[in-house]
């Protein structure tokens, strides 16, 4: 049995190494789907490009597939992720916008953990009774509402009612401090600007809330079923027999074990959350890569092919990393997992 710090580092290292072939596979797949065509795709990719650009593009496509992939892969690693139809490089835009999306996703995850998981516990505790049905109605309605409907309802109808802003990161377009991390709340905190921190939080609540509401079902349902498995076990009864309150029994003894299985949804949820940002960011004018993807896909006029691919790669990376974190969390939470 190995469960000391060194073993943990080995454990995390191993998971990380396992991740590399997965990432390579994803990039290869992305490449094949987007670059291997029976016909010449250049005129479609660069519809208004000059003759020169088209010639370059065609020269590239006439090469063998493996050579093409190698060129693509090395360029990708070097940070050359292509450019938009107006010649604006994609990579700097992604790195500048990604933190905003990360902030949005982390905020929704926070809401999912602190609302979705307790709801699952309540559902399990009152299984089959009205509280359980209420919880189910709540998360099923989140699940079944299309993202854009939920986002628009929240932005147009809910925002004025609750008095929360429904767009942008701050009330002013250029806040009086440096955008170090490009996460609105973090930047405001780093600048020590309290009013702006509150302002940023207010702007974050609605988009993060809608995103969390739509994806919360995963967390609630997994928690509920894991709790239902754990609750009849005898250690829950032994905890009760110590004279602990129902709250401690549920949230310390039962939930601690239920969470071990519930972590596996983290990966699934990350995919949903990231996909949700495309619509949510567009509706709430959130300056992240979701809105960028929306524009790149032609939402604002001309499609930006390289931009769209870049967002897909970043999303794939996000899902893979979320799964890595879930995997590590599982190992940390379950003492029966050997870290060696």
């Amino acid at each position: 049995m190995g469960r000391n710090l060194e073993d943990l580092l080995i454990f995390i290292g191993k998971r990380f190494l396992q991740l590399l072939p997965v990432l390579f596979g994803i990039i290869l797949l992305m490449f094949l789907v987007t670059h291997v065509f029976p016909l010449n795709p250049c005129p479609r990719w660069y519809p208004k490009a000059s003759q020169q650009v088209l010639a370059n593009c065609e020269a590239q496509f006439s090469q063998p597939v493996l050579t093409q992939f190698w060129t693509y892969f090395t360029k990708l690693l070097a940070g050359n992720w292509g450019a938009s139809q107006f010649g604006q490089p994609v990579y700097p835009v992604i790195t500048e916008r990604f933190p905003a999306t990360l902030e949005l996703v982390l905020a929704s995850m926070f809401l999912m953990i602190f609302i979705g998981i307790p709801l699952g516990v309540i559902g399990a505790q009152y299984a089959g009774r009205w509280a359980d049905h209420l919880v189910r109605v709540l998360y099923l309605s989140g699940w079944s509402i299309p993202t854009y409907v939920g986002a628009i309802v929240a932005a147009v109808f809910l925002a004025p009612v609750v008095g929360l802003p429904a767009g942008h990161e701050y009330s002013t377009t250029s806040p009086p401090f440096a955008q170090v991390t490009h996460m609105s709340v973090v930047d405001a905190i780093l600048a020590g600007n309290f009013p702006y921190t509150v302002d940023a939080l207010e702007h974050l609540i609605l988009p993060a809330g809608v995103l969390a509401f739509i994806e919360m079902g995963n967390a609630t349902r997994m928690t509920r079923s894991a709790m239902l498995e754990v609750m009849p076990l005898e250690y829950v009864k032994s905890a009760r027999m110590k004279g602990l309150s129902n709250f401690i029994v549920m949230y310390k003894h039962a939930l601690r074990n239920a969470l071990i299985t519930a972590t596996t949804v983290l990966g699934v949820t990350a995919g949903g959350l990231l996909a949700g940002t495309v619509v949510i960011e567009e509706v709430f004018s959130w300056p992240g890569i979701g809105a960028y993807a929306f524009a790149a896909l032609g939402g604002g006029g001309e499609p930006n092919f390289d931009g769209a691919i870049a967002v897909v790669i970043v999303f794939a990376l996000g899902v893979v990393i979320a799964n890595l974190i879930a995997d590590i969390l599982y190992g940390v939470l379950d003492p029966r997992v050997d870290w060696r």
Partner: protein
Amino acid sequence: MTTPVLSVENLSVDYEVGAGVFHAVSDISLVIPPGRVVGIVGETGCGKSTLAQAIPRLLPEPPARIRSGKVIFQGTDLVPVPKAKLPMVRGTGIGMIFQEPLNSLNPAFRIYDQIAEAVQMRHWREDGILPSFHPGPAPFDYSRRPITMPSTADVLSRPVMPGTAKDVMAARRVRTRTDLRDEVLDYLRLVRINDPETILSLYPHELSGGMRQRIMIAMALSAKPALLIADEPTSALDVTIQAQVLTLMKELIDEVSASILYISHDLGVVAETADDLGVMYAGRLVEFGPVAEIFQTPRHPYTKSLLRSIPTRYKSDWPMPTIPGSVPNLSQLPAGCRFHPRCSLARPVCTQEPPPALRVIETTVGATTSHHAACHYAEEVPGLP
């Protein structure tokens, strides 16, 4: 005459599930005087665990439902107590050892944390930080001190924070971390774990079943419960380990002389541990009395056949008698006496009239428990072959 620690009066518990209503416990009455060990035997599925868990109201309600009856613990009926107040009764009030050592310790926490939690709860109660039944005397001293039990009704209505905040803080300061650790180690030594320091930081899955059951016993005792319920503490273990844990239980019972409800499906085990014995059949208590007396002159045909089925070393050439027929389904119980399809004494009246539930009115520590049997023809049982 002393007030009993526990008296169960006409307790009936049903499970209401899709397949029907299972009458797992029907009209059971029994009394546990202070310092006495009451054994309960019965075949698997006859409702022993349901009875055990109904006492501290541990059953999942629903599907379980306490249909009627009283569970009077230290003077207070626990059946109407609201769920939120039940934690006060558990721990220092009632402790329990479960049958399944694989599952009865939390797999996610270290051994130390699990036992320390129980000790800590007791400290908080002793210090008045947590509301509780008055903590009973230490387990070793049950027999030596006169037991003065406060009325549980008083205790339940006591405010959550008795005393001033200053008192509470002072009490808290007395207990230090090392005290807690020492106390945990003491309880581990009490269950004959030789170098307890080594297991403190282990997780349950790193220990054997016998070891886990010892820890479970230590955990239950560390709360110093006024009543200890042991629900088949040895049944799930390997035979050799079973013998070790049984020896430990017997030694502890002698040392602790606490009030214990000891449940088993093995008459031999109960004979070695208990003072009084109750025999359960299909959810009913069919016989109750002092162990020696029941073994000598059983008054219920079921007990008689159970006793016959104990393999005896001296009569190894005996054919193992089995009781013909099978245990009735608890959702479709036979009318009249539940044992009549399998009873060699059964007469027509047995198929119509259930024999009166045995009623244990009063027992005292000094005097022997009176002997009761739920059978129309109890007098004829000693004459059975």
